[in-house]
């Protein structure tokens, strides 16, 4: 069964774009990036009947669920797609970030910028504490433990005073004004821009990691973990790092989230959230960051746009997961590597 023959017959969006990108000049690439990024920032201003959604304004939807799903899916992708660890408790990192900002802003008056750092730090700490014992286990058992961790975080939040118990915490501070932008409850646009900026930063860091040694290490571990170990790759260390970095993203995002909703309760951080983000990663194409972001955005958008999907959204996610695994396990935009080609202009290798 020759791979080359099969891919020729299928319409492959990824390859078509890849071909263009490979042959584009440096200037063309810069222009492309500027246009796309500009478009993304301009999105909230496109609130019109065509794009807009029935119940809330477009900007809100862009922030949540589209933007939040997208960035969390990118974070989870580092864990699941890159490091090959099935994490069913990703919401725990999100919750830790959210509660960190809530508690620190209410009790100590720290603002969001500081709390994002704290949120990430605590999430990373949790990642290390859970990861060191758990990552020694095999796939499905590791998955169950992460699920357990997610639930434990929620139940603890439900039962202790610091987190406000079942009533949660209200009066969480919105971020302080920056560049003349005010973060108000009724206007989601600045929040969306903040989220978008964070997402671009994460993507930037991710691309650099992937192109270099960590990317190779992760890929080798996913291909054949034992052989990677024999080839000098410190597999445990890299798996742990993947887990912790993915968690850091979740923690940072959680802090931003709580600053927007301004009141949080444990019911916001259920297993279902973990599974929905996982569905985004699965749908988008595990390991491929563009697919994952796009998939998440689509999965966030369509249930909002199509009313009948709204109520049955989770039902739809469930079916989607079963369908994707059985029919198109590689997702929207598959991870599969393309053959490397030498850039015509610079003579340099083009990496992905």
């Amino acid at each position: 069964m020759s791979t080359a023959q099969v891919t020729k017959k299928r319409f492959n969006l990824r390859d078509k774009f890849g071909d263009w990108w490979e042959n584009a000049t440096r200037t063309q690439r810069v222009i492309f990036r500027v246009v796309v990024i500009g478009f993304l920032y301009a999105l909230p201003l496109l609130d019109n009947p065509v794009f807009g959604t029935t119940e809330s304004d477009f900007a809100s939807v862009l922030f949540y669920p589209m933007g939040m799903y997208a960035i969390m899916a990118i974070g989870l992708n580092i864990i699941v797609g890159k490091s090959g660890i099935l994490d069913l408790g990703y919401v725990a990192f999100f919750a830790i970030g959210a509660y960190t900002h809530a508690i620190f802003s209410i009790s100590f008056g720290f603002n969001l910028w500081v709390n994002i750092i704290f949120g990430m730090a605590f999430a990373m700490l949790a990642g290390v504490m859970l990861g060191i014992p758990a990552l020694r286990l095999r796939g499905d058992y590791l998955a169950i433990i992460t699920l357990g961790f997610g639930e434990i975080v929620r139940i603890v939040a439900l039962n202790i005073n610091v987190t406000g118990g079942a009533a949660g915490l209200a009066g969480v501070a919105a971020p302080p004004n920056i560049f003349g932008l005010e973060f108000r409850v009724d206007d989601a646009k600045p929040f969306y821009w903040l989220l978008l900026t964070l997402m671009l930063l994460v993507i930037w860091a991710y691309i650099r990691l992937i192109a270099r040694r960590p990317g190779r290490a992760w890929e080798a571990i996913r291909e054949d973990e034992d052989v990677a170990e024999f080839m000098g790759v410190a597999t445990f260390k890299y798996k742990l790092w993947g887990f912790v970095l993915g968690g850091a993203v979740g923690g940072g995002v959680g802090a931003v989230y709580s600053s927007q909703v301004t009141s949080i309760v444990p019911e916001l951080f259920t297993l279902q959230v973990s599974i929905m983000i996982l569905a985004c990663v699965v749908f988008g194409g595990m390991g491929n960051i563009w697919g994952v972001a796009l998939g998440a955005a689509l999965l966030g958008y369509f249930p909002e746009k199509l009313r009948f999907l709204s109520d049955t959204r989770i039902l739809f996610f469930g079916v989607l997961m079963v369908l994707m695994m059985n029919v198109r396990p590689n997702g929207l935009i598959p991870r599969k590597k393309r053959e490397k080609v030498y850039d015509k202009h610079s003579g340099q290798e083009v990496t992905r």
Partner: protein
Amino acid sequence: MSDRLLEVRNLTMQFGGVVALSDVNLHVSEGEIAALIGPNGAGKTTVFNVVTGYYQPTQGDVLLNNQSILGLKPHKIARKGLARTFQNVRLFGDMTALENVMTAADAKNKVGLVASIFGVGSSKPDESRSHSKAAELLTFMGISHRAGQLAKNLPYGDQRRLEIARALALEPEVLLLDEPAAGFNPQEKVELGELIKKIRDAGFAVLLIEHDMSLVMKISDRVMVLDFGQKIAEGTPKEVQNNQKVIDAYLGVADHAS
């Protein structure tokens, strides 16, 4: 003694009730091509697995450069200078040939994860070092034209070479080759023999597991024979060929159809 790069002392390996290796003593000296032969199931690959840290021996010691490496994790042992190939070719299929070798070359770099993100510290020079080292090795093995192809798409012969190139990227003291000639035709085996000698001449000691007797006899400096987990003979190829115990164990007819 001091020129023994790799040494295995009184090695016993037991899996539950099965004794795979029993009080085995082996060594590989500097600058030599040593061969480990024996009937199927004699325990040869088990020796590789123990020596590279995949299994902890029930008893005995493994020394690399006169230092015990017992209990070290495989990746640490790989970095200390023991690299291997596999009976069934095990490449990183969805990575390119170059990337396969770079992954191993990376092991000799120091750059940490955080530094990689920001491109600071030694990340840039390390990256180009891995790149050039990998390219160099691909050329050395004669497959530089495959650099950009996915490992799984390579023809069998080139896959075997790639595996060796990848192992060499670890700059090992001793290179462990597990049946490198499997599936080759006689012409290819001759070429492989030359290649292994070239590797030895470049400064790497080689320990090879092989079934093809003529290849072993032609290129090895020393041969060690295992049978049922025990070493039954050791010496030059000629000595071993004429050793009655070895002949009884399995030789009889040196068969090329292996």
